[in-house]
Each structure stands twice: as C-alpha cells, then as structure tokens.
C-alpha cells in the first residue's frame, strides 16, 4: 500500500509528489490501471496492526491519524501533520512532562521518516515542536493543566496554519492590479486562494497557466480558474520565455522555503524565475510560514533527491536515462517578495525568522 510505507518500495520516490498527483493530477487512461493500484483517493482507515509505526504504549498510531487528515485534498500535508501531532498530545497517556515530550518527539520522528523528501512536513513538525514546547506553562506543577495548555497551543498552531492561506490571500490583494497578467506554475492551493479572492473582489486580470509536465497540474488549475470566470491561457512549459513579454508578474507557491531565502518548488520554477529576472518581471512566492526549513542548498544537487516517474506516452529504451527529479531550488536573488502569513517579506527575512525561532 503506497499510503503506508513508500520508503519500503523505493526510498527515492517521493510520496509527497505522489499525493499531489493523486489530488490534482490529470489521470489519463494509460495511467488509470497503474494509478488505481498505486493511489487510492478515498481509502478506508488503514488497519494499524501491520503498521510498524504504531506507538506501542497507547495503541494510537500517529501515521493513521496523519493519513486520515492528509486525504482531504484541501488540507496541506503539513497542516495534517500538525493536527496529527496535536492528536498525539490529547491521546497521550503520559503522566509526566518529560514522557509527553519524548512521545511527541517519537511521533514527530515517525512522521518525518514516513516521507523524508517532503520539506514542509519536516519543517512543520520541527516548528510545531518548538512552538508547543517553548512555553512557560511547562513550569506548572500540575501536569494536567500543563498538558491542557500544550493542547491549546497545538490547536492554535493548527488553526494558524489552516488560516494561513486566507491571510496570505488578503495580503497579496494589493499586488494584483486591474488589467494585470499573472503567470502561475504548478497547482498551489495558496496561489489558487489568492486568485480566487482577487476574482471575488472583482479585479480584472488574466492568468497564464503553464502545463506543468509531467503532472500536468496546470490543466487542473486552468479548469478551476475557468469556473471562476477568470480568463486563462494555457502555455506549455517551453513557451514561458515566449510569453514572458506580456506577463506582469509571476506567482508561484513553494514546497519549502529554505534558510537562504530561496524556495524549493515543482520542477520548472527555477527556469521561470531565471527568465523573469532577465526580463525584469517580479517573482512573488506565496508560502505559509510553517514551510520555513533549516536547509541551505548551495546548488541544485544539494537537495535530497525526490523522484517521480515520468510518463512520456511512448516506451523509452532502457539505455536512455530519464531525469526524474520532481523539484528544483530557486536561489533568493531571483525572488522579489514572499507572501507569508507573517507578512510580506523579502527573502533575507527568512533567516531572521528562523534564527529567532531557533534561538
């Protein structure tokens, strides 16, 4: 079962991208047979007996909880993780603070090990741990009230993360002016929220949507935008430079925001950012603050590999290698601004926030 332990099949196939494919990709008939076995859009609650990640003490599996939350297409994976960890605290039978913290740490490690390629998952778990445990409430004598405080903070963090998209939507409205043309890449729920809100506010703009091979998530996005009566134009990935003249700004989401201020996003983002920079078009990134991670890639190969199989539609001879990486790193000098729930930031502020948090 793919949802249970992708690491056992092939450690490099990124479960994160499989999930995104499952939620947003356009499934062609060729894929269907493979897809139906590999991805399961509406799974029943998986049984926990065979799952090696079960928490032995409490019979509560954080992975199950996580999977339950994760399969809502609207919910970001990281928020699902946060909700799962919050559930760990409530379901915990620990009697001392140390024990609770250890349980939490174990749960967090399990989640991170479930998919090592997902940056936002790791980042969100780490941030959750720091946010929840950095409270003076831990000095309370009474364990139960301390635990209640922790649960309160955990829920609050979950709420903040969930509402992050709305806040980002509101903050970015000023940047979308009447008559502008926005280029988007990949299907980011945050970006969709921004555009939805702009359409709702009766702004007149049009969107160029890249196809987003191999997931072809762009097709899904163009579909959704068309339903909102936003004029959409689909461009293939190679036509970005051709159309860049007419574009006023580029708006992308992020899978992770790294310490240098750069972003890790779907393959193709770096290319678009390079073209935009050379033509002096601003590149805006819409990302929630829980995606800030403590990585510092120096070049493209510095990331942990996250592969996803590419289907060319025709059989490829086995001698031919295929570049299967699902994501790339865009250095901070190509980004103009980051729209986050902490405000509209420049890329250099990411490190500032991380240092303050990990102080």
């Amino acid at each position, binding site marked *: 079962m793919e949802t249970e332990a992708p690491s056992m099949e092939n450690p490099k196939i990124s479960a994160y991208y499989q999930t995104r494919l499952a939620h947003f990709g356009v499934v062609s008939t060729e894929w269907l047979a493979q897809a139906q076995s590999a991805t399961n859009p509406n799974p029943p609650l998986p049984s926990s007996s065979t799952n090696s990640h079960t928490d032995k003490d409490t019979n509560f599996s954080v992975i199950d909880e996580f999977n339950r939350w994760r399969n809502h297409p609207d919910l970001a994976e990281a928020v699902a993780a946060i909700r799962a960890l919050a559930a760990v605290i409530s379901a915990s039978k620990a009697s001392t603070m140390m024990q609770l913290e250890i349980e939490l740490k174990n749960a967090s490690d399990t989640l991170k090990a479930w998919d090592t390629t997902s940056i936002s998952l790791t980042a969100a778990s780490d941030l959750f741990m720091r946010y929840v445990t950095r409270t003076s409430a831990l000095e309370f004598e009474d364990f139960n009230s301390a635990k209640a405080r922790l649960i309160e903070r955990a829920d609050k963090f979950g709420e903040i993360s969930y509402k992050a998209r709305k806040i980002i939507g509101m903050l970015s409205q000023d940047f979308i002016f009447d008559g502008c043309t926005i280029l988007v890449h990949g299907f980011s729920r945050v970006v969709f929220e921004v555009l939805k809100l702009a359409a709702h506010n009766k702004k007149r703009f049009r969107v160029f949507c890249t196809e987003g091979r191999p997931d072809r998530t762009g097709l899904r996005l163009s579909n959704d935008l068309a339903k909102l009566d936003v004029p959409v134009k689909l461009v293939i990935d190679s036509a970005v430079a051709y159309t860049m003249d007419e574009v006023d700004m580029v708006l992308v989401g992020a899978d992770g925001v790294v*310490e*240098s*201020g750069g972003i890790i996003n779907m393959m193709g983002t770096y290319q678009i950012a390079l073209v935009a920079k050379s033509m002096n078009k601003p590149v805006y990134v819409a990302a929630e603050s829980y995606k800030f991670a*403590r990585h*510092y890639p*120096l*070049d493209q*190969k*510095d990331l942990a590999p996250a592969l996803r199989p590419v289907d060319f539609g025709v059989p490829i001879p086995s001698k031919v290698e295929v570049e299967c990486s699902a994501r790339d790193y865009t250095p*901070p000098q190509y980004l103009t601004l980051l729209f986050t729930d902490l405000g509209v930031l420049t890329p*250099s502020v990411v*490190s*500032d926030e991380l*240092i*303050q948090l*990990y*102080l």
Partner: protein
Amino acid sequence: MSSILFLQSVVGLIVVLYPANGNSAVAESGKAALAKSKNQSSLKKDGPPVTSEVTIDKKSGNRPPEKERKKDAPPQRMQFDDQNRVGKAKRRALVNQTEAKNRVELFRHLPQYDHGSQLPNLESKLFQLDSVHPAVFKVGLRYMAGDISGVNARCTEMLRALQEAIIDYSTPPEKVLIRELTAKISSYISFINECRPLSISMGNAIRFVKRRIAKLPLSHTDVEAKTALCSDIDRFINEKIIIADKVIVGHASTKVRDGDVLLTYGLSCVVEMILLSAHDVGKKFRVVVVDSRPKLESQALLNRLIAKGLSCTYTHINAVSYIMHEVTKVFLGASAVLSNGTVLSRVGTACIAMVAHAFSVPVLICCEAFKFHERVLLDSICCNEIGDPGALATVPGRMDINYLENWTNEENLQLLNLMYDVTPSDYVSVIVTDHGMIPPTSVPVIVREYGQEHYLI
C-alpha cells in the same frame, strides 16, 4: 552611574600622576585608554591637564546616557595621520617604533613602522618594563615576531596571558578592584596593540573581559573575583572558540560531497579541521590549495593535508582563474565578519571569492560567531594592517633577484604590504557559524540576538 564614577576616578589618576614625568606607565596608559575610549572632542583641547579635567567633568555631568552608550561602543581607532595624537602616543609608548621612511600616502592613517629594529628593541627592554606583566610581555613579543598568526590563536594566547595577569594581580590598598583591574587590563591591551595592531574580532574578546570585570559585585573579595574572572575567560575560550569550531566542522562537513574539488586559501585552522574531518569520515574529494607571497602560509596547511593522505593541488594566486573551472566549492576562513555581510580576511581572499562568483562556484566562509562585529566596512582602506614592506623586496632562496635592494633610498618608490582585505557580501554564498549556516544578510541578526547574551554569559 558607575561610568561617571569610573570617569572621575580615572580623571583623578590623571591629575595626580600627570605632572610626575611619565615614569608610571600605568597612568599614561590609563590616559591612553581614556583617550581611546571616551569623547574625542574633549581631548582635542588637551593642553594643560586642568582644562581637560574640567572639560571631561562637564561632559560627564551633562550626558550620562551617551557615556554609557559610548562605553559600549568599541574604542575609536587611532588615525596615524593626525600629528598631535601620534606625537602623544609616541611619548606614552612602551615600545619604541621608528616610522618607516617610505610611507604610502594612501595609508597614512595606519601605523607604518620600520620592522627591522622593532624586535631587538623590544627584546632589550625585557627587564626594564615593570608595568607590563611577563606573560603579557611574552605574548607581545611573540606577536611582533610573527610566531602567532590567525585570529583564533592570537585571541586565545592573549586571553591566557590576561588570565595569568589577573591571577597575579593584587589590589593596592585603598583602591577598588574593578577600576584598578580595568585600568591595568587596558594598559596591557595598549601594550599588545603597540606590538601588533589588534584585529577587529579581538576587540570583541577584550570587551567581554572588561564587561565581566565591570559586572563583578563589589562585595567580592580579591580571590573570589579573580577566580570568577578566570573561569569566565576559560568558558569564553571553550565555548566561543573550541566548541564553536567543532560545531562549524559538523555543519560544513555535510556540504562536502563525494567527487568534490574544494579550494582553500591561506591558513585557516577551521578550514583545515573541516577538510580533515570530511576525509576521516571517508568522503572522496580533492583539495586545491592556493597560496600567495610574501607569507606563503598555505605551505604549512599543504604539508599537514598531505601527511593525512588527502590529494592536493598547490598553486599561487595568479593561477586562480585558470584553475577555478575545475573547482566545485570554495572554503575560506575569516578574520572578522561585519554587519553588512562583508568579510574581513587575509589579503587575496576577495580575489578568490570574486573569481569563484564569476564561475558560479559557491563560496563558504567558516567563522565563529565571536568574530561578528557591528561595524560596517565599505573598502579595504579604512581599516587594515600594513606588514613589513621589506618582505616584498626579497625572495627567500633567490639571491639573484635583488632589483629592489635599495628601495628605501628611492624617493618615488613605496612598497605596500597589506595584510587584510574586504570581500563584499555579494560574493559570499553562505557563512557557516556555530549558530548554523546563515546567509550574509543575517549577520546583523546574529549580532543583535546573540550580542547581548555574548557579554552576559
């Protein structure tokens, strides 16, 4: 409040001791400390001591908050083209320095001394300088001889010497430990400064020591205070230098991949540790060691790396653009990192960083957090150190290259041997510190967040 009291006590020192014609080096150096660390304007009117006392008193009455702030600020560096101040400094100096004959015009604000006569001169004074503690004298001598190089080593040696001096210190009767000790430490520091100008990051260490002294509770006895100070200094050296180096090595080793070609320049102890530890872990990489005249420091690094079995290439800095296309990463050390992200390091570093940037090779600067400073430098001219120009004129081992034998007699010829240069932040990809890997734009954040804690540990 304590600053005003301190001020008045030092002023008291001046009034009492100034007429006695300069045999007490402590007082003179105390005045030097005052000159360097307090208001400059009051000293410009410095003629008869009475005037200066009045001026200083007036100023202290009016603006205590600014005094507090000024005390926090690092002392003003002495500008050597100001004739008045140079003259005064000479009279107070413990080390006789003769000015170099052919001074470079552009660098007149920096001390340029004749290097030949300095060391024998100082050695001859071994038994004459009572005011200087023997450990401090030894450190000064070693600095001047060039035995110790590299900020970490210099800082550690200096702090150890101060530790010994503190242990041997005893408060004279009727005096308060805090003020006396601070004055004494200041005098030692100015002595060391005369032997070899302090680097920016050593100033941080000295400020730490002075702050610790100032924060000693008055109720402590001598012995208690001294043990507290010594343990503080030990902790500083341990936490900020030794352990910090280990943390940096841990972070930076993750960036070394199999098949890498790493370039390094100069002799940085941290970079050496990183290379050796990555090799120990079993990563396969090779090293390009770049060197430059006249110091040829990297040869020592090269010997040590080869002894451990790393495969190295050795070249001089003129070939950097030739070899840079093979290089995958550049590791450099730093003497100090300033608030706008610029890196002050051995001369030639800027060159390497710029060539690396032109070839899109990432540049990693490895330096401990205590070297971060709030200053901002825009060029290499304001704050630098001039080495021995004679070293440029000769090539060791080649007696036939003697075209510059009589360079001192040529009026139109000046030889310039700079020790440091400044690398702008655009050419630095990442700074690896004991707080983690940070972009150069985040240096003021570290200074802000950890600056206070740094002095209050």
